[in-house]
């Protein structure tokens, strides 16, 4: 079975009035079927309010479906007895690193997860060391997290998840608050986890450049999956993406503009190297 599988997933939020009485429901996810294989890098795009974060919260049972089913590594997230297994399988990283760090020393923070899982002390320290090494933050193990840069804090947050040895990491806009270097650091870290540890990565983002290396992209709109495919397939449909309030990387816009001006450039260019090659070869 796939690491993540959803079948007709539906989630409804209850609308409440000032006294807290339920006045109606609003459907944030409306019949989503997604399969993600172990080791894949999958990106989820969609405008604010499209349902992507609600979807992400189903992957480690922060939310459970109103209807339909989510299986994480074969476990039904609705089954209360599977809750801890589900959470151990799929770790989450959120937007704001400051909201995720609780320790006063980096290594303590990273050790918090495995400690809660009841991992023996010797092994906790081993995992802390390995995870900090994996995100390139080992030399900061004795530092206080609040003195770190945004990118460094986010890497510590990722190490905290890695230390729980999940098979799958879900990152919900992990770079939204970071400067350009911080964004690069976080993406590189995520890529390495995938290639070195075969961790499945599910990345939710509003930055189109960050998903060009994904194996597959899902685009969500009003709780539905409206597009799915490889980055090249998705980003060659500029107008459709714009309709869903999304965009394409700047190099793709430039390639598109040059094609409109009569140059012979293939559709779906994603990297600057590809554009440079196309321009130097054919023209």
């Amino acid at each position, binding site marked *: 079975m796939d690491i993540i599988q959803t079948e007709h997933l539906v989630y409804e939020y209850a609308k409440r009035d000032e006294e807290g009485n339920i006045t109606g429901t609003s459907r944030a996810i409306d019949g989503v079927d997604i399969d993600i294989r172990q080791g894949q890098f999958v990106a989820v795009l969609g405008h604010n309010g499209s349902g992507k974060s609600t979807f992400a919260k189903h992957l480690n049972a922060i939310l459970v479906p109103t209807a339909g089913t989510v299986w994480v590594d074969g476990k039904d997230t609705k089954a209360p007895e599977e809750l801890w297994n589900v959470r151990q399988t799929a770790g989450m990283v959120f937007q704001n690193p400051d909201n995720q760090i609780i320790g006063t020393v980096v290594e303590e923070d990273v050790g918090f997860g495995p400690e809660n899982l009841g991992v023996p002390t010797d092994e906790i320290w081993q995992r802390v060391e390995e995870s900090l090494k994996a995100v390139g933050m080992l030399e900061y193990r004795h530092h206080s997290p609040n003195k770190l840069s945004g990118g460094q804090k986010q890497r510590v947050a990722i190490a905290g998840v890695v230390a729980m040895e999940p098979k799958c990491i879900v990152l919900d806009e992990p770079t939204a608050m970071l*400067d*350009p270097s911080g964004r690069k650091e976080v993406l590189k870290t995520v890529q390495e986890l995938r290639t070195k540890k075969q961790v499945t990565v599910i990345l939710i983002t509003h930055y189109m450049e960050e998903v060009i290396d994904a194996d597959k992209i899902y685009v969500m709109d009003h709780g539905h999956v409206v597009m799915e495919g490889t980055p090249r397939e998705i980003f060659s449909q500029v107008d459709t993406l714009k309709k869903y309030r*999304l965009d394409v990387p*700047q190099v793709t816009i430039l390639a598109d*503009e040059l094609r409109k001006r009569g*140059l012979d450039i293939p559709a779906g260019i994603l990297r600057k190297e590809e554009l440079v090659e196309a*321009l130097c070869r054919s*023209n």
Partner: protein
Amino acid sequence: MSIKLEHINYIYSEGTAYEKHALKDVNLEIRDGEFVGVIGHTGSGKSTLIQHLNGLLKASSGALYFNGRNVYEEGYPMKELRSQVGLVFQYPEYQLFEADVMTDVCFGPKNQGLSPEECKERAMEALKLVGLKEKYYQSSPFELSGGQKRRAAIAGVLAMRPKVLVLDEPTAGLDPKGRDEILGQIASLHKASGLTVILVSHSMEDIARYADRIIVMDHGKVRYNDTPKHVFTHYMELEKMGLAAPQVTYIMHDLREHGLSVTTDVTTVEEAADQIMQALEMKQ
């Protein structure tokens, strides 16, 4: 009308173990009607800098002149400074607190001592400027989407009719269309009314597209203070500071290395396309 900073230093928690010299001898002038971009790595002093502009933070040393008058001199009307320089914080939607959008946007003008009618008029005007639809005016802020909440919060500052609008990462966490809409609206407001805009952002592409001038902060100091074209020619130095240039700038450098005679001081897609077409025609 201008804001002028002379030898501004700011030290957090001076004299304690947590002392941090956040601004170091900052000298800047922001002229009336400019659109200025501020970039810098996390912790470079950008947010500290902009909190000086409306007097939220008082410099440890140095002087800040607003329209030629030192705001640190005794008896300076700080309240007036604060209504002239509107500051929109990061994630301003967290500051929405009233039961409905209209009342929330009225809060600023109400505190300026305006009558309920005037407050409402200004709020309507501000909400129109940010492009929030009328059907949301009576909604609870919590019923709005992320982008809509952000607009309502910006409207709350605009309703005070500031002469200078300072925005600290106004598009963080918004989808691409939301980013373009909000920045587009601010840019047209700047054009139409001559509003001075100071935009802090981590998106080099956005800064390149909208700003006339860029201030680059690095470890509390101003490193560059120049047009986007000039600032982004220093892309290697910018990378060392945790920043970057827009993607098109890199493409132009690569093309030149591959023998295409394009200029490299390009910062927007339109310019890049023009340059490439020109270079290719010359080649033929």
